[in-house]
């Protein structure tokens, strides 16, 4: 398939189920809310080494936040509800709680819930208090600029992780520009994130390695410097390839975010979700 001179491989992207949570972070200004969210998303690019994948979502208008202040959404993904609970506790406690004027609320009704504020309250050392409003409990933890308000329970929902696209091109700077534009588009899609730096990954991985203790290693078929030493998926004139990894709260959301070029799959061994590029593009009318 060709779209405006770009070849779309007839392949599919493979994704796997993940557990997801959506945090609504608010603060006195949009900048402070964004800052808290960005710190909360630190070192969370890949589930392989970070235990989670986190991305900053859209800014939220004060009219849509629980406390009527400017907000920002943070999407957190992990491989099990237990790990996700651990990650949420760490990130809310170590990144969002210390952020000036911040508050943190649950933004998703999940199949399961995790008590996060219910544990973080102990930081209050006995001075904490709570408010119960419409069946939801909010903890008030005293901090040095007032109180950190955090919801007691956060929803954990089934999401989709690891949906990916690979952009291959002649000139590195042009491929990168395209990848960055695509990452921006992904982040604008509600409920999806691209967790790598700037949404772009230059180190697509394959499962396993020649070394038995290494779980993932460089995906050599996309490395231009290895063309003469290993099998390659790069055309001869290609100079670079960049991967876009997409996590989403729903399969549909990930599909909507994937309107680009090629995709990485592992022969159907990685996960149950398969996003066939030609099918997605045809359904979205991109070939017209």
């Amino acid at each position, binding site marked *: 398939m060709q779209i405006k001179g770009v070849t779309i491989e007839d392949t599919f992207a493979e994704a796997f189920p993940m557990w997801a949570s959506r945090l609504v972070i608010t603060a006195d200004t949009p900048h402070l809310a964004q800052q808290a969210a960005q710190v909360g998303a630190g070192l969370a690019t890949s589930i392989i080494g970070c235990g989670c994948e986190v991305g900053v979502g859209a800014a939220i208008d004060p009219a849509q936040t*629980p*406390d*009527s*202040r400017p907000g920002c959404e943070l999407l957190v993904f992990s491989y099990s509800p237990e790990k996700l609970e651990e990650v949420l506790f760490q990130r809310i406690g170590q990144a969002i709680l210390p952020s000036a004027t911040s*508050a943190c609320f649950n933004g998703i009704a999940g199949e399961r819930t995790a008590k996060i504020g219910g544990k973080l309250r102990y930081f209050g050392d006995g001075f904490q*208090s709570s*408010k*119960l*409003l*419409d069946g939801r409990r*909010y903890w*008030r933890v005293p901090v040095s*600029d*007032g*109180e950190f*308000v955090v919801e007691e329970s956060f929803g954990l929902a089934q999401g989709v992780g690891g949906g990916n696209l690979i952009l291959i091109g002649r000139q590195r700077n042009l491929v990168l520009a395209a990848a960055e534009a695509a990452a921006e588009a992904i982040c604008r899609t509600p409920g999806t994130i691209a967790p790598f730096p700037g949404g772009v990954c230059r180190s697509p991985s394959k499962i396993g390695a020649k070394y038995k203790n290494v779980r993932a290693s460089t995906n050599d078929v996309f490395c231009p410097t290895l063309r003469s030493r290993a099998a390659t998926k790069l055309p001869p004139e290609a100079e670079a390839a960049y991967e876009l990894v997409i996590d989403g709260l729903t399969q549909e959301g990930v599909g909507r975010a994937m309107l680009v070029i090629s995709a990485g799959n592992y022969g159907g061994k990685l996960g149950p979700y398969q996003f066939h590029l030609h099918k997605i593009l045809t359904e979205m009318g991109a070939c017209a």
Partner: protein
Amino acid sequence: MRITLDFHIETDLPVDIKGLLPSKVLPLSSKKIEQLQVAIGNTQLALHDCCQVTCSVDATDELVLAGDTDRLDDIGNGMDAGRLVVRGDAGRYAGVEMSSGELVISGNAGDYLGAALKDGMVRVSGNAGDHCGACLPGHKDGMTGGTIFVAGNAGNGAGAAMRRGLLVIGGNSGDYTAVNLRAGTIIVMGTCSQNAGLGMRRGSLVVGKLQGDLLAGFSPAGLADIEWLRLYRNKLNDLGMPLPKSWLKDNWQRFSGDRLSLGKGEVLVHEHIE
């Protein structure tokens, strides 16, 4: 289905209508409803002797009380489901020990409105008497959940011994508001009178204006932002009782106490008046 009970009572005695609840009345036929009894003084009277029963099949499911409703005591006492509307004033003990549902009073309510409320919603368009949301005489617990909205003023002892829930008073509240408060939230948008928070253990009393000083058991805790109060903004907006805009912009004076009791309560004061 809407069932309307239009009361015409020619007596000065209070009329106890305990048991006339939406969950019990709505499933009955008109004839059976007319046979239900109410207590006037020490005598029992069938409904057909003191009120007219009408049914509207196409309307919302609710029980409506109209006519001489100001004599009716125990309206919605122990209510466990449904919607009960009072077109006019309500007598004493309206909404006492309600566990679910919605009680709407378009006029004023007497003493002990929503006393010992467990859950559900009580809305009053006018004023409420003494002991609104408080504990019943001889009992130790006030509201343990639910929400009471009084658009007008409330009398003395509002929210006494409250353990949980939300009590919002759109106007002024009398003396001894939040006395022996154990937890929960009381918001007085107007002026709160004397001796507020006496014996308060935990919980929050938020007042627009405080008349005079708080009791000696309260310590000033300086200026405070009111992060948590913003959470109530949407709910109050939905119920047509928005928080004043200045409340969300200004800093508040915060007091903690009552140190004669546990002392973990807070009183937030927007403005002091002498």
